[in-house]
């Protein structure tokens, strides 16, 4: 008995022994956020003080709003409730969806899992890493699921790169869009890292598809580095500089950071409720750090979660704030792009 209390001395007040931690995931089973949660679940049980059972509760619906609102209303602050967040949960907040009742920017993030976006085109349309031929085209079609999703950022990206012919084709999922791209019906396409490796890389090796750019990996100090999966492809800031003849700065840079935080850095996240105490947040962060040192985690993480290291600690909170609260200039930039393409939807 005395041995037990000795072990948990670091977190004298926090012990989850005999408790059940409920991990609310506002998506259906099988999706990316669910897979992320399932992968972390056993490690969390192993390293949280008292080894609580961790159960995942899926509440899909309403474009992730239903489950997120449920968490806001029902989560206890004692560390027995955690939240599985993703880009779309953040975008709902950032774009001011009136149905949102959750105060995401105040939540206490434990772990962020970054992602990255790759853009590419057919090899008969452009040289690798070069947009000039694309910019000459009258019509450049690309897939856009709905303007009320993270796909909205594509509109802004193409706008800033001066692709005048860019025209979104609505209602295409990334997989459906990629199929249409392979059939030659659309010209520009993009994928996240996992599908890029699985589906796009083989086509690049066959010579049918060429890389254009990646979103770039944003560091804690704001520096942007290239994506290790496509090290030769320029990042968006590099491409912006090449096309516009000036560095990415000012309002455009601010918008890029906001988009990068929502889309890339906080692609998946595990969070505690806003009123969780510092001790509980610390217990969770400690468990997360121990998890990343676990040999089993190290062996499986790259395959299950992708090549980008987890973000743990205070830095994560800053990223979530940046992602969830868009400044008025960023909103105006996005709305200008929406207006130009005759969308009625507006970021609020």
């Amino acid at each position, binding site marked *: 008995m005395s041995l037990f209390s000795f072990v948990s001395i670091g977190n004298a007040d926090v012990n989850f022994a005999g408790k*059940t931690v*409920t991990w609310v995931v506002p998506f*259906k*089973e*099988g*999706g990316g956020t669910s897979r992320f949660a399932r992968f972390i679940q056993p490690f969390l049980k192993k390293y949280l003080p008292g080894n609580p059972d961790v*159960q995942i509760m*899926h*509440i*899909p*619906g*309403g*474009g992730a*709003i*239903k489950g997120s609102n449920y968490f806001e209303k029902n989560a206890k602050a004692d560390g027995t409730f955690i939240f599985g967040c993703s880009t779309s949960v953040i975008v709902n907040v950032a774009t001011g969806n009136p*149905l949102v009742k959750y105060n995401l920017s105040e939540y206490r993030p434990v772990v962020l899992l970054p992602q990255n976006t790759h853009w590419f085109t057919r090899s008969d349309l452009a040289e690798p890493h070069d947009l000039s031929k694309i910019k000459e085209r009258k019509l450049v*079609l690309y897939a856009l699921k*709905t*303007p*009320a999703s993270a796909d909205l950022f594509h509109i802004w990206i193409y706008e800033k790169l001066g692709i005048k012919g860019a*025209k979104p*084709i*609505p*209602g*295409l*999922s990334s*997989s*459906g869009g*990629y*199929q*249409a791209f*392979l*059939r030659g*019906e*659309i010209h520009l396409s993009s994928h996240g890292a996992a599908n890029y490796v*699985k*589906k796009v890389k083989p086509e690049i090796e066959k010579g049918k598809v060429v890389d254009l750019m990646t979103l770039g990996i944003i560091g804690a100090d704001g520096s942007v580095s290239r994506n290790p999966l496509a090290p030769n492809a320029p990042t968006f800031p590099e491409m912006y500089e090449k096309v516009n003849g000036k560095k990415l700065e000012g309002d455009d840079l601010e918008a890029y950071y906001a988009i990068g935080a929502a889309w890339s850095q906080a692609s998946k996240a595990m969070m505690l409720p806003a009123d969780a105490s510092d001790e509980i947040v610390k217990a969770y962060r400690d468990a997360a750090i121990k998890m990343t040192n676990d040999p089993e985690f190290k062996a499986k993480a790259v395959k299950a979660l992708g090549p980008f290291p987890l973000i743990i600690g205070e830095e994560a909170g800053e990223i979530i704030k940046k992602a969830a609260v868009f400044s008025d200039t960023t909103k105006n930039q996005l709305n200008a792009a929406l207006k130009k393409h005759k*969308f*009625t*939807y507006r970021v609020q």
Partner: protein
Amino acid sequence: MEQLLAALFQLFEPTHLAFLFAGTLLGLIVGILPGMGGTSGLALVLPFVFTMEPSHALAMMIGVLAPTTTSDTFPAVLMGVPGTAGSQATVMDGFPLSKKGMAARALSAAFSASLLGGIFGAFILSISIYYAIPIIMAFGFGEQFLLVVLALLMVGALTGDNLFKGIASCFLGLIIGSIGTAPITGDPRYTFNTLYLLEGVPLVVVGLGLFAIPEIVGLLDSKGSIAKSLNTKKGWFTGLKDVVKNWFLVLRCSTLGCLVGALPGLGGTVVDWIAYSHLKQTTKDTSQFGKGDIRGVIAPESANNAKEGGALIPTLIFGIPGSGNKVLLLGGFVLIGIEPGLDMVTTNLDLTYLMIWSLAIANILGAGICMGFSSQISKFTLVPYYILAPVMVCLIFFATFNINRDWYDFIGLLSFGIIGITFKNFGWSRPALLIGFFLSSKVELLSYQTQAVYGLSFLSRPVSIILIILCLATIVLLTKQKFDSNYRSDLIKGKLTQIYYIIILLCLPLSMIWFTSSLDYRANLFPISLSVIALSLLVFILIVKIADLKNLSFLNNTFMRFARSNIFEISGNFNNQLFYYFSFIGFLLMNFIFGFPIAAAIFINIFILFHNRKAYVSSICISAVLMVILWSLSSLLTLQFPNGLIGLFIDLPWWLGGQLN
């Protein structure tokens, strides 16, 4: 080839086999229950599959679908009632054979024909997977758009008793499917500012409401047709010999079944008739048909099992359902996170092979169980409906709640239940409504996508032209072949009710136009165009009905005679069915007050005792057994029971509907 074998080995892992077996058993049971088929069976398991691993879920779902058309022969042969829509033609000769004391011969012939047909279907499916990539690449937005539209037209034209009512059903389904967020602009359409309608009604709710509820009240209404005695002992060997002798017929009908199944949207309800009429046309001596010719059992049974493999082709490679129950299968794909299309033949090829093997093995298992345990299974048809019905209602409610744990889903279930009951009674097409509902967003998106990429030029692309010709030819051929049901308008009572019903139906398109007219044109163009078409169809049907009722003279030309056929339809006693339907509403209220476990126990006991006062022993046993099953399911899958109002005041344990953990 390596992957093909790897998938087979994967399937023979004990867990996979267990899920496949569980699915097959459920499929056999829903097949035996008259009227219940793959659609209801799959709708019952869908709320639970998404806690499973994708490969387990697929094995289970295919397990449910494959054997329904095997076991549906029991009621068709023994009682003269088709077990699923796919065995209507089996009744023609199967029931007379049974009356002649040759039930065993008919059953064994049917099971072995089903087995061969099913395996043939799986074989054709696996071959077509090899050629799928070029097909997918040749089908751009324009071709897919045409394929979907043609699928809808065919379903509408061929699954309804009346061509115009069938097509109108389709459009009503499309309109209901357009409820929710407009895909292009994100505007809410017809949602009345509720979060529930923002994503549209869940597919499982629609499936259970349209198919399961009407069949249950239908069964309760037709309590008379229970088999009195069963003689299934002798003649098994004769049946097997019949199939061997008619091997070429089995092959032809399986091919036919596969082809019809592969036509998008078509399947279940027509394939058995097509096989039967093919048999009649190719046979010299037709004198015994309808009186107990064994070939009349072999032909539809081999075709209706073969169609499953065929119907999976468009389902897997385009995400366009090959038949009604594939709509639910596609819904299941969404739940477990796999997307039909190119992925199914590239990165997810292992899952596709797993489905093919599951299909073949489920057919073998199903036929094997049916033959091996025929006398036990045939006793199942002796169970009175008033015992089956409340159990099924409880299962449906349990499944419905576990889709989203949302009470609104019960309202959705009962609303689609009453739509299903009226559609079934008044001769509108439920498969067309379901497929229209499912394909609605696809039609809308494809029309925008086609317009953006091609404009109208897609119509002149070679594949498009082939598709249009194929579709027109099918409709013309099949409407000619369609079985004449000896329709007599003068025998139908209560025609006025059906006329009022159309006026109720008119409210849907009218209100849709009203509520969406203020939106952006990209958000309301689709629902308003659909509504206008639906309105014109409904008004036309209304005119024909009134003319038929008053016996007006302008009906006496070829076109109007065609339009008039089966314009009124009534099956069973509508008022009786409404009575049973209202008892379900009572059950919902009990749920709301007491929570599900208590309400279910009360409902089952009251329902059974109402029909048979002496049956209290069985009613108590049945409710107890059902609760034990549901309790173990819940603790296994961490599901929750609906908890009622009293749960707010008293802290109930979870097994009485209290909160988990």
